[in-house]
């Protein structure tokens, strides 16, 4: 097992590579997920707060 | 057969984008062509020999990089124990290289290298940096050994750098 972590003496280079990839990809994925959740929550809030303004909002959105 | 104004606009925008892309592509190709000697990272030994007197390259006066394969059996340590001497070859041409310092892990005979330095008056290449260049073949050790045994080896010692 320890020889697995040693990576033939190249442990630093191999594990740093996998670590950097995990950090960057994980960071982007989590950030995007949180942002998507926040955006949809805010949208629901506004829709509930102003149901009679939906038509105007739809027109403004061009949908 | 008249296009609606909206479709005519779309078609015009498409035309503009295509023409702009074509002009840009040609411009970039011309720039890269003009810079071809600058973009090149290293010269092979036979290229150095044939362009030694090229006034544009001034290979005799300036620092440049030479790349090729380390000739089999050419590597030796000089008396000072720190300087390595070997020959870089690309088939038709070869240069003797002297380098003082640590060599990269991949440096070995038959392997590709790129050395940076200048030519001395004896036609030797005095390098102050040696980088290993590896080829695009990836395989386990057992496969490489088997290929060598059966004579199907097409690895780094035959390939061009």
């Amino acid at each position, binding site marked *: 097992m320890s020889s697995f972590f040693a990576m033939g003496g190249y442990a630093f280079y191999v594990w740093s590579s996998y670590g950097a990839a995990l950090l960057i990809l994980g960071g982007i*994925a989590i950030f995007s997920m949180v942002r998507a959740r926040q955006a949809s929550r805010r949208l629901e809030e*506004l*829709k509930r707060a102003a149901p009679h303004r939906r038509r105007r909002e739809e027109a403004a959105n061009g949908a | 057969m008249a296009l609606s104004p909206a479709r005519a606009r779309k078609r015009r925008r498409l035309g503009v984008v295509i023409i702009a892309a074509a002009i840009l592509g040609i411009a970039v190709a011309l720039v890269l062509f003009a810079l071809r000697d600058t973009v090149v990272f290293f010269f092979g030994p036979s290229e150095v020999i044939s362009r030694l007197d090229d006034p544009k390259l001034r290979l005799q006066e300036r620092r440049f990089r030479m790349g090729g394969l380390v000739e089999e059996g050419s590597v030796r340590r000089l008396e000072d124990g720190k300087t390595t001497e070997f020959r870089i070859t690309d088939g038709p041409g070869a240069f003797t290289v002297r380098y003082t310092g640590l060599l990269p892990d991949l440096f070995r005979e038959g392997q590709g290298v790129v050395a940076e330095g200048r030519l001395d008056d004896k036609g030797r290449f005095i390098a102050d940096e040696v980088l290993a260049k590896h080829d695009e073949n990836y395989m*386990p050790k057992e496969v490489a050994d088997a290929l060598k045994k059966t004579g199907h080896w097409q690895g780094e010692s035959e390939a061009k750098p």
Partner: protein
Amino acid sequence: MHRFANPARFQRLASIILPWSDVLTAGLLVSGLYFALFASPADYQQGETVRIMYIHVPAAWMAMFSYSVMAAASAASLIWKHPLADVAARAAAPIGAGFTAIALITGMLWGEPMWGTWWVWDARLTSVLILFFLYLGYMALVNAIDNPAAAVRAGAILALVGFVNIPIIKFSVDWWNTLHQPASVIKMGGPSIAPSMLLPLVLMALGFHFYFVSVLLRRMRSELDLARVRALEDAIALNSEEAAA
């Protein structure tokens, strides 16, 4: 094409695709990592450092793939004024920048032990660094312009102009002498890589593609939601102004 232009229809389509792409991303990356780290051999020349390849090469492919998606979406937004194309282009940029950063970092971590240097200014490395700056420049430009229509157009033009860099990256190793080795997988005459090493490479590459789909759809979703949030907030502000007047 305009059938998908309707944001509501896009949201429905995204909620069908997302669970699948999430599961495929996780499955492919877990099995890819298993083969990359445990069940594949060391290289005859490079030893264990060859395992860096299973991150480096797919990340570099994705860096170019993401940019191609961004450029295609920019063209669609510029020519056909497709409302979702601009959203897609803007959503793709940070993902592509992330993959480019990974390719550059792992490349340095691979270059130091094998080549003997973290970095050289050869054509391949330099053109990938330019790609990274194109992503950053695109994101900065789009965020810096307040007028949405102007931001869309400026960003799309930058993305399209920068696309010339993609063939330069791909063919730099063939056109010029570089320290970087030529292509191993996508080349004439088939891959020069042992099947036991090709498997983790392909698994990781597929995993990265589905990761791209998942994150892209999520980012497009929040972008569309935020556009509606802004429209609603404006409407509310307008209403209260009218009430006050």
